[in-house]
C-alpha cells in the first residue's frame, strides 16, 4: 500500500510499471489490476483553462489517502494499492492522479478503484486554482463522476 504526493510531473505508466516490477504487489497472488489515471483538461464549465495550481495540506493529504487505502484494502481484501497525486503547477495534458489496485479477482479491483477515486475527490485536502483567459479562480466544486 503506497501513497505519494509529487510536486513535479510524472509518467503514470512508467511509475506503474516500475512499481509492479519492484515486486510490491505480490506476483502470482493477484489476478486483477485496475488502473485509473486522471489528466488535466483544457476546459472547465465551457471556458479554456491555461494552467492549474494544486494546493494541498501537507501531512493531512497523505494521512487521508492512507486511511482510504486501508478502508479499501479491508473492504475488498486487496493485495495492494498505489495512489499518486500531483500538486503544484500543471498544464493541460499532464496527469494529476494515478490510482491502481491489485486483487485476486476483477470485481474487487473495479469497485475498489472507483471507491478510492470518489473518496479522494470528496475528502482529500486538495484544491485547484484555474488560470483562465479572464483571470485566476478557485474551483468551487468537483464535476460529478
Amino acid at each position, binding site marked *: 500500500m503506497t501513497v505519494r504526493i509529487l510536486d513535479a510531473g510524472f509518467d503514470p505508466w512508467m511509475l506503474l510499471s516500475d512499481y509492479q516490477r519492484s515486486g510490491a504487489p505480490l506476483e502470482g497472488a493477484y489476478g486483477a489490476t485496475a488502473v485509473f489515471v*486522471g489528466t488535466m483538461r483544457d476546459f472547465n464549465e465551457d471556458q479554456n483553462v491555461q494552467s492549474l495550481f494544486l494546493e494541498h495540506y501537507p501531512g493531512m493529504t497523505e494521512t487521508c489517502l492512507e486511511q482510504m487505502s486501508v478502508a479499501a484494502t479491508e473492504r475488498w481484501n486487496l493485495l495492494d494499492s498505489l495512489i499518486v497525486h500531483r500538486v503544484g503547477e500543471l498544464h493541460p495534458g499532464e496527469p494529476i492522479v494515478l490510482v491502481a489496485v491489485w486483487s485476486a479477482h476483477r470485481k474487487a479491483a473495479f469497485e475498489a478503484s472507483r471507491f478510492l477515486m470518489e473518496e479522494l475527490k470528496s475528502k*482529500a*485536502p486538495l484544491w485547484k486554482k484555474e488560470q483562465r483567459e479572464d483571470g485566476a479562480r478557485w474551483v468551487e466544486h468537483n464535476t460529478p463522476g
Partner: protein
Amino acid sequence: MRIEVRFFAGLRERLGIAEREVSVPEGTSIRQLWSLVVPEEPLPDNVLAARNMEYVDLSSIPCDGDEIAFFPPVTGGAG
C-alpha cells in the same frame, strides 16, 4: 490554551492568513475559534475543519497545542 490555526486555498487568500497562533479560553469550540480569529468574517456555510489533520465537527472542542485548519470544499483528483 494555545491553538495553531491554519487556513487553506481560497479562504487563505481571502483572509490573508495562512497560519496564526492564538490564545483562547479553555472550552472554546472550533466554531467559536473562527469568530475569535476572524471576527469580521462570517463562518462560510460550506467550510470544513480539521483537528490535528483529521476531519472534525465545528462543535468539537480542541485541546491546548492542537492544530486547527479551516478550508473550503476539496477539489482534488481529475476525470
